[in-house]
């Protein structure tokens, strides 16, 4: 069973997926996600690095309102973070780590998780997890 990303055009379609940023022709500025629609012609789609460092973070402790949130009814708090990649800083969640172990500068790598663990074939979203050895377990 193949998992489907939560949206088209934001992740590469390869075994080790990557985020797709957009480099603006005029300025060289990198944005995420790569704009679609009328603005798309002003940007080049560029796969982003899979490794970065935590830039800042917080804990999402309550279930966001639906709509727009589409996660499971049974809410499990998650670490919401910004991760600095070599190209740009991206919004994400962190997995496989306790809040107490998260710190600014922590080395993390890209991974993908289902938004709803009970429906793993749908709504794959990006996340980051500590690189091996970055956190004592």
């Amino acid at each position, binding site marked *: 069973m193949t998992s489907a990303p939560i949206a088209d055009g934001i992740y590469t379609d390869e075994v080790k997926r990557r985020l797709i940023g957009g480099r603006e022709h005029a300025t060289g500025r*990198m944005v995420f996600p790569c704009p679609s629609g009328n603005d798309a012609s002003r940007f080049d789609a560029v796969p982003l690095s899979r490794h970065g460092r935590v830039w800042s973070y*917080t*804990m999402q402790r309550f279930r*966001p*309102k639906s709509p*727009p949130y589409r*996660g499971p009814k049974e809410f499990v708090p998650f670490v919401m973070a*910004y991760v600095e990649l070599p190209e740009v*800083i991206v919004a994400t969640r962190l997995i496989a780590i306790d809040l107490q172990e998260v710190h600014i500068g922590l080395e993390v790598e890209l991974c993908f998780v289902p938004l709803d663990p009970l429906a793993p074939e749908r709504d794959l979203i990006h996340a980051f997890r500590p690189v091996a050895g970055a956190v004592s377990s």
Partner: protein
Amino acid sequence: MSVYIVGVGIHPFGRTEGISGLEQGVFAVRAALADAGLLWGDIQFAYGGSDASGNADTMVGALGQTGIPFINVSNGCATGGSALASARALILSGEFELGMALGFDKHPRGAFDPIPAQWSLPDWFGEAGYMLTTQFFANKIQRYMHMHGISSTTLGRVAEKAYANGVHAPHAWRRTPVDLETILNSQMVSDPLTKFMFCSPAEGAVALIIASEKRARQFTTPFIRIAAAAMRTRPPRSFEVFAPFIDIDRGGSSTNLASKAAFEAAGLGPRDIDVAQLQDTESGAEIMHMAENGFCQDGEQEQWIAEGRTLLSGQLPVNTDGGCLACGEPIGASGLRQVYENVMQLRGIAGARQVKNPKIAYSHVYGAPGVSTVTILER
């Protein structure tokens, strides 16, 4: 030529069951008219708006169908400030002598629930659970604390001051003091910010009557001059509410731009300000906005707040009515509540929260997706 505030009215902030946002707006308008000694029929034009509570111009049904131009403003957290800046500009144009700016709102309990498409964002950003203002504020202060040595105790002291000041403001929602320990140990909402460090969506309304210099001379209320009213959107490379990405090379903020524009227009600087109302969506925001508005350098807030410099008795009292933390945040009304409070302070009628003899007062509102309004009033 200058523009003056000649009347102010407020509907108390908080929760008023059974009274709509529009009705609270009408209440504030009538209060402002009474304050100025005017009738609705005297008002030549109005700018007003809310984020979630309807069309301001429909108030003419209750106020009187005098046929005046009544322009609805929808500018998120800057709604009230934009209404005031626009109304002031219209008087400066010479077309009218007397007008009104108003803002009102009434939000349901709990966090705001914005829809991504209305903020020029892809649907997945909200579907994945990132469309929350709380996440932005928490991430911004978390990074700021790390970079500039701000402690959790300082976050707590800002909230403690807010509730202490709110006790003395009749229009405030939360009017009970909360001690530092309770604030620090209350439920964690979005780390590092606890429940008592966040403001809540609320209800309320504010109306201001403004006049040309010629018209203002006919009033007996103290002269309060609008020295500047500047609204700005975000510059490149800023970090704002609802951001799927941030530039590595950081730029400034909408607050930086609005503050700079207002100081330049007024011919004043941060040291000239006697009292300031700064956007305090949460206590970290007040701390960061002290620096973004130019009142101190990044990191100096730790010492400022330890020394009590932003208390009512300090060198720069900040959020003298308890700010958003004590008043709650009705989006459309919040920015004008700050101006209302500054008028109270400059008139010298702020009661137990009155600061000593202020001449120049500053207000700053900030909101998604990077809008800011700064006003400077002068007595």
